[in-house]
C-alpha cells in the first residue's frame, strides 16, 4: 500500500518528461547491441505466435515434417470449419454459433454488471465522507489477496442450494456486486482527479447525486470505462475455473474455453490434432486481440499509469 501514496507523486512527471532529455545511445556498438537484443526478444515472442497460426493452417500430414515447414503448403483454412464439424460429431450441441453465443452471453452480461457496479462503488469511495470509509476501502483492496479457491467451495454450496448449478447464473450475477476490486480502485483514482468545482457548479444548478453521476461524472471517466471494459471482457472471456466448476457436463452451455478443454481431453495421445487445436486457440485469441488493437490508445498508457500507481 505504501507504494500507492509515494509513486503517485511521480505520475504527473511521466508526461512532462520529454523524450529528448535522455540521450540516445551514441556509439555504434551500443546501438547494435540494443537493437540486437530487442530483435532477439521480439523473435522469442513472435516465433511461437507465428507457429500457432502456421500450425492452424496445415493439413494433418504437414504437422510432423522435418525440417519444420514455416509456411503451410497446401494451406488448409478448412481446419477452422472442420474443427467445428468434428465437435458437433462428438456432441450435437457444440455448434459454432451456439458456443459463440454462450461465450458472448456470459462475457457481456458479466462485463456490464462489473462496470456499472464498479463505477457506482468507486464514486461512493471517491467523493463522499463517511465514517469507516477508509477502513472499508482497505478491506476491499485486501480481498484481492485472498486466494479464489477459498471462497469457491462455499459459493458452490450456496449456488447448489439455490438449484442454480449448471446455469449461467453463477458466472454472471455476482458481477452486479462489484466483484472486481481492482476496477473499483482504478475508477476511484480517476474520479479523484476530477476537480470538485465541476460537481459544485452542478449542485448550484439544482442537480441531484444521480444526475451528477450520470450526466457529468460518467462522461468524464469514459476513457477509464473503455479500458476497464477491455480488461473485463478479457477476464470473463478467458475465465476458465468458473465455467469448469459450474457448467461441466452441460454441453449446451459450454463457452469456448470449456469446448477447448473438452476437445483436448478427447484427443488421442498418439496422433493429437494440433492443427485443429491451434485453430481453436486462434479463435479464442482473436476477439481479445481485436479489442486491444482498437482500444490500444486508451489502454497501454492508462493501465500502465494505474499499475505503477498501485
Amino acid at each position, binding site marked *: 500500500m*505504501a507504494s500507492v501514496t509515494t509513486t503517485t507523486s511521480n505520475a504527473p512527471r511521466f508526461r512532462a518528461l520529454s523524450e529528448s532529455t535522455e540521450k540516445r545511445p551514441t556509439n555504434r556498438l551500443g546501438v547494435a547491441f540494443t537493437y540486437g537484443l530487442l530483435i532477439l526478444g521480439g523473435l522469442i515472442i513472435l516465433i511461437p505466435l507465428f507457429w500457432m497460426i502456421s500450425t492452424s493452417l496445415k493439413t494433418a500430414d504437414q504437422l510432423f515434417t522435418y525440417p519444420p515447414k514455416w509456411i503451410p503448403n497446401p494451406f488448409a483454412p478448412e481446419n477452422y470449419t472442420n474443427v467445428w464439424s468434428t465437435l458437433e460429431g462428438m456432441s450435437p450441441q457444440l455448434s459454432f454459433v451456439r458456443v459463440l*453465443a454462450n461465450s458472448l452471453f456470459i462475457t457481456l452480461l458479466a462485463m456490464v454488471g462489473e462496470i456499472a457496479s464498479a463505477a457506482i462503488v468507486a464514486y461512493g469511495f471517491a467523493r463522499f465522507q463517511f465514517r469507516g470509509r477508509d477502513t472499508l476501502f482497505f478491506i476491499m483492496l485486501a480481498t484481492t489477496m485472498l486466494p479464489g479457491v477459498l471462497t469457491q467451495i462455499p459459493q458452490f*454450496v450456496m449456488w447448489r442450494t439455490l438449484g442454480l448449478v449448471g446455469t449461467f447464473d453463477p458466472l454472471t450475477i455476482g458481477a452486479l456486486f462489484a466483484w472486481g476490486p481492482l476496477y473499483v480502485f482504478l475508477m476511484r483514482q480517476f474520479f479523484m482527479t476530477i476537480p470538485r468545482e465541476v460537481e459544485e457548479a452542478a449542485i448550484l444548478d439544482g442537480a441531484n447525486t444521480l444526475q451528477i453521476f450520470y450526466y457529468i461524472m460518467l462522461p468524464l471517466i469514459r476513457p477509464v470505462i473503455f479500458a476497464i471494459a477491455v480488461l473485463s471482457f478479457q477476464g470473463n472471456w478467458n475465465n476458465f475455473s468458473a465455467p469448469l466448476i459450474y457448467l461441466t457436463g452441460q454441453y449446451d452451455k459450454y463457452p469456448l474455453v470449456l469446448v477447448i478443454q473438452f476437445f483436448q481431453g478427447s484427443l488421442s495421445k498418439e496422433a493429437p490434432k494440433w492443427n485443429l487445436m491451434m485453430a481453436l486457440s486462434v479463435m479464442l485469441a482473436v476477439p481479445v486481440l481485436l479489442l486491444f488493437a482498437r482500444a490500444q490508445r486508451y489502454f497501454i498508457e492508462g493501465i500502465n499509469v494505474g499499475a505503477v500507481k498501485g
Partner: protein
Amino acid sequence: MDLSGLNSYLSTLSHYLLAAVGLIAFMYGFYMFQRRIGIKREAATGRTLIVPWAAGFVIFVAFPVGASLYLSFTNYNLFKPPEWIGLQNYADMFKDKYFWPNLRLTLFHALLSVPLGLIFALSIASLLARNVRAMGFWRTLYYLPAVIPPIATILLWRWLLSPDQGLINTFLSPIYKLLNVQPLQWFTDANLVLPSFILMSLWGVFGANTIILLAALKGVSPELYEAAGIDGAGGWAKFRFVTIPMITPAMFYNVITSIIAALGIFTQSAFISAPADAGTFWNYNIYVQAFTFRKMGYASALGWFWLIIIGVLTLFVFRSSAAWVFYEGQQEKS
C-alpha cells in the same frame, strides 16, 4: 438455434435483472432509512453507493471464507450434512504422498519464475528506455503475449515443447546430435516439468512486466542522472545507484502481484498432464479434491493452508521491502 437454448439465456437474464432491481431497491431503502434516523445527506449517499460492493463482500467473500474455515474441520461430500472431525483434514493433508511434490512445484515455480521474469523484464525495459526508434512498435510487440488468452498460451507451449515433434526440440536437435544425448522430454520427464512450466510462464508474463517497468524507468528524473554524471558516475554506476533505487517501488508492486498470481496458478495443470511425482499446482489439486472427489472439507483445509502460505510470503516481501524499496522524499536512515 433451438428454443431450449434460448430458455437458459432468458432464465439467467431474468434472474440478473431481478438481482439488479432488488439491489437498487435495497439501496433506496437503505438511503431512506439513514436519512430517517438523522444521518447527514453526504454520509448517507456515500454509504448507499458502496452497497453493491458491501453486499457482495458479505455474500461472496466474508461468509464463504468463514464457512470454508468451518468446513475445513468437517467431512463433507455435499449429500450428507458436514460431520465434525477436528483437525483430521489437516493431518491427512501432511500425510498425502503428493503433499510435498505439489507444494514444491507450486512454490518453486513462483519463487523462480517471479525473480527471473523481473530480471528479463528489467533488461528489456532498460534497453527500451534508451529512446529507441519505433517505441510504439516495440511496446505493442512486447505486450502481445499478455493479450493472448492463457489457454491459448498453454496449448501453444505444450505443442512447442512436445518431445518428438515440437518446434523447440527440432531447434535443439543439432545440439542433441553434437552432444550425442537423448532429446529432452519436457513435460513428460518428471525432472523437467518445473523448468518447462517456468519457461512457459516467462514467455507469458515478461512482456507485460517490461511495459510496467518501462513506465517507471521513464519516470526517473533526468536531473538525477545529470547530478550523478557531474559526480563522475559511469553508465553502470548510474544504473546501479540511480535507476535501480528509483524504480524499486514499481518492482515491489510487481513482485507482490506476480507472486500472488503465481501462487494462484490453476489452468496450467488442467491442460497439461505431467507425471504425478512432479506434482500438480496447489489450486488445481484443490479443485480436483473438491469437485472430482467431492471432498469439500479436505479441499477447504487445503485452501486454508494455502492462505497461510500466501500470507507468510506476502508478509516476508513487505517486511523485506524496508531494506530494498526506496521511497522518494523519505529520509535515508544512517
